[in-house]
């Protein structure tokens, strides 16, 4: 009847609060990062920040090392998570729901608390903190994010496809290699997204599990920002953002973006 009423009844309008939130806390900061990254201390346009990164071997090394750690973590998560998801998806429904819950349960506890507990545990067991501990902590923290999407795609897979493959002469190994694995790739792709993205930017886990001995790229950014080097920090953030964007594109492409996703 009147305009005020259509404002609330039109369903598209219900998204307005979130769009506003998104604009203020996501879009504007990203724009600010881009502006800061291409500006010098006097707000003039410059590429000096990127040049500084390229000419700074320590920063580049940290960057490469971070990417390496992230890839290692992601691969370890796939190797550990895929068999777990596969076994879970094959179990009877009631039993597997309970077991899935067990795998997901650690996610209910705050990541910092979990990591602090890991540090305490390693201390108690006299396990030296360092690179090994770091990768362990990352895998431990992010493994559920790999298991769940893979479990979901396997669960949804039509079992008659497995029967069809067996019928056409495929032994159990071929059934897995030619049917189950290719059909679960969308789940693996979302798992990679869910694990790779946070591992490349995290710094808390690295600080706690290496006693600040190993610096990751996230830590470098945090230090620069803390020390008032806003423009350089912004440039580093932008580089990381681009890397995450590229990963997202690659994995969503390989998975057709159709299936998978967590929940």
């Amino acid at each position, binding site marked *: 009847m009147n305009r005020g009423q259509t404002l609330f009844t039109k369903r598209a309008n219900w998204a307005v609060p979130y769009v506003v939130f998104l604009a203020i806390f996501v879009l504007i900061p990203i724009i600010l990062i881009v502006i800061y990254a291409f500006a010098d201390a006097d707000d003039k346009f410059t590429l000096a920040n990127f040049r500084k990164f390229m000419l700074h071997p320590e920063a580049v090394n940290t960057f490469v090392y971070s990417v390496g750690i992230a890839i290692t973590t992601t691969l370890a998560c796939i190797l550990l998570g895929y068999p777990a998801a596969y076994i879970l998806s094959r179990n009877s429904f009631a039993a597997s729901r309970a077991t899935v819950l067990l795998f997901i349960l650690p996610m209910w506890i705050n990541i910092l608390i979990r990591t602090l507990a890991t540090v305490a545990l390693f201390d108690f067991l006299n396990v030296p903190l360092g690179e090994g501990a770091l990768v362990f902590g990352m895998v431990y923290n992010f493994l559920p994010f790999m298991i769940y999407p893979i479990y979901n795609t396997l669960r949804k897979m039509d079992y008659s*496809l497995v029967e069809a*493959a*067996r*019928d*056409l*002469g*495929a032994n159990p190994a071929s059934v897995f290699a030619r049917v189950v694995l290719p*059909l679960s790739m969308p789940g693996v792709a979302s798992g990679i997204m869910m694990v790779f993205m946070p591992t490349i930017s995290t710094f808390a886990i690295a600080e706690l599990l290496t006693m600040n001995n190993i610096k990751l790229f996230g830590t470098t950014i945090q230090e620069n920002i803390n020390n008032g080097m806003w423009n350089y920090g912004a440039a580093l953030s932008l580089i990381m953002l681009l890397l995450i964007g590229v990963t997202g594109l690659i994995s969503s492409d390989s998975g057709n973006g159709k299936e998978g996703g967590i929940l």
Partner: protein
Amino acid sequence: MRKSEYIIRVKNVSKVYGDKTVLNQVSLDVRKGEFVTILGPSGCGKTTLLRLIAGFQPATSGEISIAGNNVTQTPPHRRPVNTVFQRYALFPHLNVYNNIAFGLKLKKLSSVVIAGKVKQALRMVGMTGYEYRDVDSLSGGQQQRVAIARAIVNEPEVLLLDEPLAALDLKMRKDMQMELREMHKSLGITFVYVTHDQEEALTLSDRIIVMSEGRIQQEGTPIDIYNEPSNAFVADFIGESNILDGIMLRDRLVSFAGYEFECVDEGFGENAPVDVVIRPEDLYIFEPSEATQFTGIVSSCIFKGVHYEMMVQTPGGYEFMVQNYHPFETGREAGLLVKPADIHVMRKERVCNTFEARSVDETHVEFLGTVFEVRPLDDIRNRKSFRVEIDFDKIILHDNEEDGQLTGEVCFILYKGNHYHLTVSTDSDEDIFADTSDVWDNGDRVGITIPPAAIRVKPLTCGANE
């Protein structure tokens, strides 16, 4: 070796899930090159039987051999059979070509040979030129053609088809039936086809196996099955039938619906209770005249395309279905006639409910896991176990499950002209048979009461006849 004449031999195979028997001592032989259809209503065990032959499930007991080899324990990928699934089960991550080539690639054939075979298979199913299409972009009928091509390209000894046309619309189904028939002829391989569609079975098969409740009811050529159904279930399931209770008075004389008829059957003895089956197209309908065997009032007349289907009510309260090219107006009196050779007489599987029972005290017995009150037991007081008989029409069924002494589910309904003959599966998984004029549906939950006066107590050892 006469052994090789049979490509599939199924011997006394049973399949039990938990405490439910899906297949009960099924035996079946399939000849090389035959087109055999396993026909039955849903839940009769036909798909389970096919899956046992394909090897997707192990048999609980019994033996299956294919091409002379015992394959009871062989996994599916080592059996010389291929399956066409009801829901196609095409691999969504592969295109048409790679779907069809799937089995050939596993055999490690050269890519030139594979390309040739795939092309030939596609031509066979009329899908030439679709090699590089995504399977999701195909229609249901096209997907089923690809599924058939994927199976036959492996040149199996036997092609198993699990309701392959069930998901298609009527027109497409008819076309595909003809094509399957042609394919069977030109390929020369054995087809084992599962369906619940009796028309499809009659059209396609060399031989039909009718199944119900995990057992084979009858097997034979389509013409045999249609013309000489071996029991009331088969008669009811294949085509339309009038099925009535009758009495075989003596050889070649049967009484039903209150009249006596000449027939051609012999050897039932005198006054034997029988089931009588008359196909609706075998009942002649005309103006009442000298030739009339009995008369009735036409209660409905429906045009069915080629013929009219009429329901005729006799004065004795029986209803007959009649098919004729000429309609009779509703409400008119008509004369009916059936030739002796068209009256099919079958021995009844049972004439009353029979259960083994145990006495509790002088006025109570226990059977079907329930204690029933009976009239005082005199002669068998000292016996522990004996037999009880209850006539079909004495069983009382209730809408409300709590009103009965025990509960069950209606699992089969047979219309007998003036009443319904129901098979009720009790919760202890035994069947009670009840005659009623009330209308029930398959799957209805009912309460069952057996009045004391209806329970006849008989000694256990006595013979079957009274």
